[in-house]
Every structure is written in C-alpha cells, then in structure tokens.
C-alpha cells in the first residue's frame, strides 16, 4: 500500500493512501470530535455522510473548512484541527443542531450516554442562541412493542438509516422531508409496527441521541417484585453475562454470571433461573428436528425440507415472515429459548411449586429488543396470559441494579436455582454467532452416530466473518453447515437457497452482527469492535469451564423429558415448545 505523509497540528504523520484526515489524526492521538460519523470496524461499515459538520478542520490552501471524516489525505497537506476559526465553526454548528433539539436531558432515556450531550459538555456550551424558525418539532411519538421513536430528538446523522439499509437490508427507515421537517421514518410515515421493521434494534444501538430507544419495562418489573401475590421468576440469556459488567465499569469480556445471579436475588426475584436451560432444551428439539429431516432426506423422502434454519432469533423470524413468505416451512418450528423457558415455567414449574400460572410472573433478561416483541405474540399466550410477562434488556437490568443500591462489582458469586437454572456449555455459546449450530452439532452427532464425540470444540464453526460455511463429518456422512449473522448476510444466504445454489443441511442465522453478544439490548459498544471480540471470547471461556458441554447430557433436561414432556418432538413438546409462522405482507 502506498504511503503518503502530511502535517496535522504541526506534527508529521504517515498514512496509507486513501485514509481520511480523521483517521490520520487519530493515529497521532488527535481526537477530532464527530457526531454523524460511525465506524463499525468489525462489520466493515462506515457511516460518513459528512452531514453534521462537527468534525470540520482547516486545510491550508483551501477556502472552506473541510469535514475530517470524509476528506481524503493528500501528500503534503497541512491540516489544523484546533484554530479559533475551527473551534468557532464547530460551536456554531453544534448550537444550530441544539437550536431545535429538546432540552429535557435530565429525564431523557439516553442521558449520560448521549453523543450530543457529550459534545455540548466538551464544547462548553452554556447557552443556545435563538435561531429563526428553529421550532422544537412536535413529531408524533411512535411506540412499538420493542422500540420507541421520538423524532424530536433526531439530529439527522442517518446512522440508523445506514444500519437498517446497508447492514441489515431491512429497509424500514429512510430520511424524509427536508430542512427543519426532516426526520428518519418508515415509508409514508407509517408506524414502525406496520413497516418491514424486524425489531432487531440495531438502529437503537447506533443512535447517538434519545431519538431511538427501547421500550422500558423496568418500572413494571419493580411493581411485580413488590406484589406479594406474585411469584416472580427470572431467566437470563447467555450473552448477558458476558456484557453486563461493562455497565459497572468492568472490562469488556468480564464474565459476571455469579454476580448477576446474586444481584437478581438481591432485587427480590423469587427464583433465579437461566435461559441457558431452555437453550439446552432448544437443542433437544431443534437437533431432533434436524436429524428427523436429514434422516428422511437421506431415505429419499421428497417432503423433507432442507436446509433447516435455526429459529431462536425473533428478529430473524420477523425478517423471514416478511421477506420470505414462500419459505415459511424451511425454518425449524422450535420457539426461541426465551419462549421455551416461559412455557415450561408456567406449566411444569408452576405445577411443581403448586401455584397457578396467573400467580407467576416470568421476567427475561435479554441482550435483545426483538424479544420484547416475541413475548407479546398471541401464539405465546394462554387465555391472554403471556408465557413471558416482561422482557428487559441487559441495559435495563443494569438500571434496576443501580436503582436498588447494589454494589455490583463487590457482590460474591452465587448460583442459579434448580431445576431451570442448570445448563451446559452448549447452551452458553448460543450467545455468539455460530454457537447454536455448534451446540446442535455436539448433540446431533452423538444421537445420529450413536458414538461419543472425540472433540467438543468445533473451531471451524466459530469466528466473526459475516457468512461462514463448514462441513462436519457425521461418521461418513458430510453435514454441510452455513452460518450468517447480520440480516444483510442472512438475505444473501436465503436468496442463494431460493435460487437453488446451495446444498446446506443446516443454517444458523442471527439478526445482530456478532450474534446475541452484539444485540441491541447490550451495553452500547460505540462501534468498538474490541468490545465485541472480548464478549465473544468470554462466551467460549464460560463454555470451556463448564463440567457438562453437551445439551443432551444436562441431567435436568433428561428429568424434564422423563417427568413431563415425554420425548423430543412429542405431542406435548410440540404444543409447548414449537410454533408456526405467519406471512407478513409489509413490503
């Protein structure tokens, strides 16, 4: 790669040809402020519309200031990033953005984590001069089961638009109108629930302000915990334990499984369980379904649909219901682990505890916003009583812990309760892309071949590349596996399958980049790929440390089938653990 050198703030710097001034400055420790700019290195996605003008710098010989995020370095360029002219321009730009922005920061859900607020602090803004026509807009609030849109707080950075269109290929959002009236919205300004939105929530994860936030259920959970007539049980998803610590200042990748269980008990949950138990259950059902389809396929049964697609990810389910209505019989019918847990808790567990389902409240802690939509689907209710009452995000759990005066970092480790708290290493890796299919392989291999696996780690299935493929030898039968994370990658695989290009037996798909560890309910990573990598490693560390690492060896799963469900794919299992899909005509 050709190198060029330039001078920034009197210091000489050498960069690769094509680098931007922003990148060059960063290389020598000069941190130019940005707002609309977003760089998701692990996805190879850069949002640099150059629209906000917060990053302007002075380039010698140029009449106008240049936006550092999208100005390419030239050999011999002389750049100054902090002249009076630059500082004044940035301040004016920020004041203009603030001129029609609500000033309710004290009670804004993004307060303390808002990029705009950070800039106002950094620039020392103490007043905002009035600007003609700068009315604070009163755009209607749009509340869906998962996301809240408050377009009064939109600064038109268009990060959400990039992630929704370029990364996820969902195409629910676009910038509309112009001037003070411009916002990001679905087509025809319909509500987000009527748009092709999958509730993956990645727009929330990248929004710099409070314009896009999750629906907050913390107060409902507090009310339930205070109700003496309710037994409140909680389940925590695998990816939560690898990220929750970040909210309390712990290093990314710190595993806080034990502290999390202790904190949940402190919060007053009657039983502290683990979604990982339901992940093991998912493997029993999904794995059996996989083997059933492969078995029939190998015998020449034309009705056996292959490949089988995983169905644990509710945003992915929404995506194929909307975009691939002709392929509704391809995914596994297994419900998401969250819903399997809820279903088992309100039947098997409620019976064991001698309470009615109405007396039990099931709360789930998820790295995910689509799970909020998942748990309110009509299919997952019995007489209008949902299997899972409230789904809260990792961030919401952190907020609950902070509100309850718990010093999280100094909590001693505790264990989950039984019987729905026992899990294997196979369940833990559900939290990372490739994990579900690896867990399925560990079980399906042994059930298919009747032999013990000689190795448990399938490194060929791991990694952070968007689309991955591998073939696993099932004792002479090669099982072809595909993995995609990020819905844009999923679309590529699905289009290939529709066109008959692939011969996969099984495919794992996760809507969020990185899998659940990169979920929209996780602590904000601000595009730092090191955070995602650290969580990824933490998940596999937890797996390696587990005494049992195959789902079918979980003794409490065996017991559940013996006492209650019969066998995988039994009628009862179908009724409680499987679902059906609906065509959603939303394009």
């Amino acid at each position, binding site marked *: 790669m050709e190198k060029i050198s330039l001078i920034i703030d009197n210091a000489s710097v050498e960069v690769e040809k094509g680098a931007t001034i922003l990148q060059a400055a960063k290389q020598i420790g000069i941190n130019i402020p940005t707002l609309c700019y977003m760089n998701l290195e692990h996805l190879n996605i850069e949002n640099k519309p150059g629209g906000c003008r917060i990053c302007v710098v002075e380039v010698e010989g140029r009449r106008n200031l240049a936006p550092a995020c999208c100005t390419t370095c030239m050999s011999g360029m002389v750049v100054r990033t902090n002249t009076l002219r630059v500082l004044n321009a940035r301040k004016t730009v920020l004041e203009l953005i603030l001129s029609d922005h609500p000033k309710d920061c004290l009670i804004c859900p993004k307060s303390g984590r808002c990029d705009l607020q950070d800039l106002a602090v950094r620039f020392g803004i103490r007043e905002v001069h009035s600007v003609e026509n700068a009315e604070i807009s009163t755009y209607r609030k749009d509340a869906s089961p998962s996301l809240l849109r408050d377009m009064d707080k939109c600064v038109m950075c268009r990060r959400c638009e990039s992630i929704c269109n370029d990364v996820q290929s969902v*195409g629910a959002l676009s910038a*509309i109108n*112009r001037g003070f009236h411009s916002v990001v919205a679905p*087509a*025809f300004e319909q509500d987000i629930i009527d*748009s092709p939105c999958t509730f993956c929530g990645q727009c929330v994860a990248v929004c710099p302000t409070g314009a896009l936030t999750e629906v907050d259920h913390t107060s409902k959970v507090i009310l339930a915990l205070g109700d003496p007539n309710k037994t409140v049980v909680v389940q925590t998803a695998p990816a939560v334990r690898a990220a929750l610590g970040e909210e309390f200042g712990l290093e990314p990748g710190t595993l806080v499984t034990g502290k999390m269980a202790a904190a949940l008990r402190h919060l007053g949950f009657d039983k502290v369980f683990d979604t990982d138990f339901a992940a093991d259950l998912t493997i029993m059902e999904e794995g059996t379904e996989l083997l059933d389809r492969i078995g029939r396929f190998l015998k020449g049964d034309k009705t056996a649909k292959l490949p089988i697609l995983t169905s644990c990810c509710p945003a992915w389910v929404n995506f194929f219901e909307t975009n691939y209505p002709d392929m509704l019989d391809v995914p596994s019918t297994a419900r998401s682990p969250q819903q399997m847990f809820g279903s088992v808790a309100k039947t098997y567990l409620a019976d064991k505890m001698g309470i009615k389902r109405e007396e039990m409240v099931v709360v789930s802690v998820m790295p995910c916003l689509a799970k909020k939509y998942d748990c309110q689907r009509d299919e997952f209710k019995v007489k209008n009583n949902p299997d899972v009452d409230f789904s809260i995000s990792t961030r919401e759990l952190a907020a609950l812990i902070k509100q309850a005066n718990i010093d999280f970092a100094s909590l001693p480790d505790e264990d989950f309760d039984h019987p729905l708290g026992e899990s294997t290493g196979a369940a833990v890796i559900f939290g990372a892309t490739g994990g579900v299919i690896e867990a399925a392989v560990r079980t399906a291999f042994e059930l298919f071949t009747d032999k013990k696996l000689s190795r448990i780690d399938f490194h060929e299935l791991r990694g952070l590349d968007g689309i991955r493929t591998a073939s696993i030898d099932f004792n002479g039968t090669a099982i072809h596996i595909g993995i995609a994370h990020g819905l844009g990658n999923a679309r590529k695989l699905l289009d290939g399958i529709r066109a008959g290009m692939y011969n996969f037996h099984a495919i794992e798909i996760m809507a969020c980049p990185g899998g659940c560890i990169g979920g929209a309910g996780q602590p904000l990573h601000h595009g730092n790929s090191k955070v995602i990598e650290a969580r990824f490693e933490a998940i596999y560390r937890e797996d390696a440390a587990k005494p049992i690492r195959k789902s079918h060896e979980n003794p409490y799963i065996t017991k559940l089938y013996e006492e209650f469900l019969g066998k995988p794919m039994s009628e009862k299992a179908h009724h409680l653990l499987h679902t059906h899909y609906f065509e959603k005509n939303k394009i």
Partner: protein
Amino acid sequence: MSTFTLQECHKNTIKEICASFHNEPGELINVLHKTQGAFGYLPEEVQREVAKYLNISVAKVYGVVTFYSFFTMTPKGRYPISVCMGTACYVRGAEKVVDALMRELEIKVGGVSTDGKFSLDCLRCVGACGLAPVMQIGDKVYGRVEASQLKDILAQYE
C-alpha cells in the same frame, strides 16, 4: 391516504418506465419524474411498484419523493395552474394573482378544486420575465396577468 387503485395497465406503465432506465436504482429520480408525468402524481401504490422494480425499499422511494418539492403525492386537477413567483413576476403582482385564484377556486396553494377541474401551484421563474406576471394553465402560458381577468380565463376551461 390516497384512494388510487392500481390497475394492470398502470402497473405495465410503471414497469416500462423502470425498464427504460434498466431498473437501475441510481435512476430513481428520473424514474419518478417520468412516472409523475404519466400519472400526474405519485400515490403510495405507485411508489411501491417503483420500489419493487428498482429493488430498493419503499422507504427510500418515499424519502426521495418527500425531499424534492417537484414530486407530489396529491393528484393535480385536470387543468393544473402554476403561477410564477420568481422575482420579476413577484414585484409585478404575482401574489395578487395567487390570492385571487385562491378566492375564486376556494383552494389553497397545492390544493385541487372540489370538482377536480383546477389545481393551484406556485413555481419559480419560467424564463418569460418580460411577460411578468406569468401564469400557466396546462401548457398554455398567460402573460401580464391581472386579477380582474382571471374569471374570464378560467371560464374558457370546460
């Protein structure tokens, strides 16, 4: 919401327009320009069809339609009236002409008369400043228009 129902022939028109631009997403503005020429406006259903052929999201199409003031989602009258509000026309009384038209037709700028006959819009400079103030009805240009003549001009349209 519009009450436009897309007929098979409309779909063919849209298909042909998109095909004439090789269904190229980058040609969206040109496609919309031609489509509006064919239908007079761009109702929801038409935007959905365009999105389908160009293989882009409906949200993107709607974004472009709402960004450019040239595009409209409300139907025009059979005889669309445009009054030039460029500098020359403005100083020679174009605003009075617009006011008189609004009174006469009982509509606002951007609106359509209840019988669907006339719609009223303002535009910038048609390049006939010597004739200011200028008004267009359909393709016909009227120069040196005065408010008092409007009744007679409108009466010529059946």
